[in-house]
């Protein structure tokens, strides 16, 4: 297996968001990979990604909650922390039952400094 090199994975179907997050965090010194769907995210996890997952809720086919459920079903949650990155002001009821797996919640449009600070903060939670 080729281990995926990255600290952060941005998972968002919107290319503009993927590019913006990747630019902000790369400029801050983080290694960032981008996935355009929940399915691609799962594949990166199966390939060994370990780090902070910035996960969009509203995605076609497999939304953020479906993606978390798939991660749990595959036992891929042990080396990641999940931060939801979303345009919604407050999460929907689909979060109930999954909230212990979501360590934080950032609302788009996000503040760049807050994004950088929180990503650095949560990287400390990744098992070595």
């Amino acid at each position: 297996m080729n281990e995926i090199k990255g600290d952060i994975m941005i998972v968002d179907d919107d290319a503009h968001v993927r590019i913006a997050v990747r630019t902000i965090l790369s400029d801050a010194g983080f290694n960032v990979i981008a996935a355009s769907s929940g399915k691609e995210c799962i594949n990166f996890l199966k390939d060994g990604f370990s780090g902070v997952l910035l996960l969009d809720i509203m995605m076609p086919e497999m939304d953020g909650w479906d993606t978390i459920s798939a991660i749990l079903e595959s036992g891929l949650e042990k080396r990641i922390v999940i931060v939801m990155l979303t345009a919604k002001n407050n999460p929907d009821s689909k979060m109930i039952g999954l909230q212990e797996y979501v360590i934080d919640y950032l609302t788009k449009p996000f503040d760049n400094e807050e994004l950088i600070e929180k990503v650095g903060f949560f990287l400390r939670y990744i098992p070595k």
Partner: protein
Amino acid sequence: MKIVIIGSSTGGPYILEKILAGFPLLKVAIIIVQHLPPTFTRTFRNHIAALTQMEVIIINENSPLTEGKIFIAPAGSHLLLEKNRIFKLDNNEKIHGVRPAVDMTLLSIQKRTEDKIMGIILTGMGRDGANGLYHLHKIGGITIAQDPLTSPIKSMPQAAIETGEIDHILNPEQIREKIISFS
């Protein structure tokens, strides 16, 4: 004994570290019920321990509650207090979709003249903690909800506020000061 019980979910680890950073040794027992996956309990404990002079302990079955320490509820079990002094772990069904649920801890608290209890609900999804704070207030405890405007997710503190039994609605810095002045 002075006892502080803090319930927290999504957004909580970041806010808790802000509240507890540089905490002096206080003559109070602090219990933290944070919704977390089991693999992160020890990491969470280590980060809290690095911030404060208080000893930080992951609770085991029959652990005694003592002043001057911070107690972390282990992920995967509900946490109860027997006679406000001895911890009991309970592996029954999740409540509000979570285990531990801080409602279970707060509802196990008894009115005892020798104890002063403070309950605090921070950010999180759902309504865990609301029933527990209602109970705590009815038996004479002090109740605090994080100001929803400062919460990444508002529903847990909002549900607590809607019980009508909340003494203070505070931001994290004010919560920190309240705990220190309570000790």
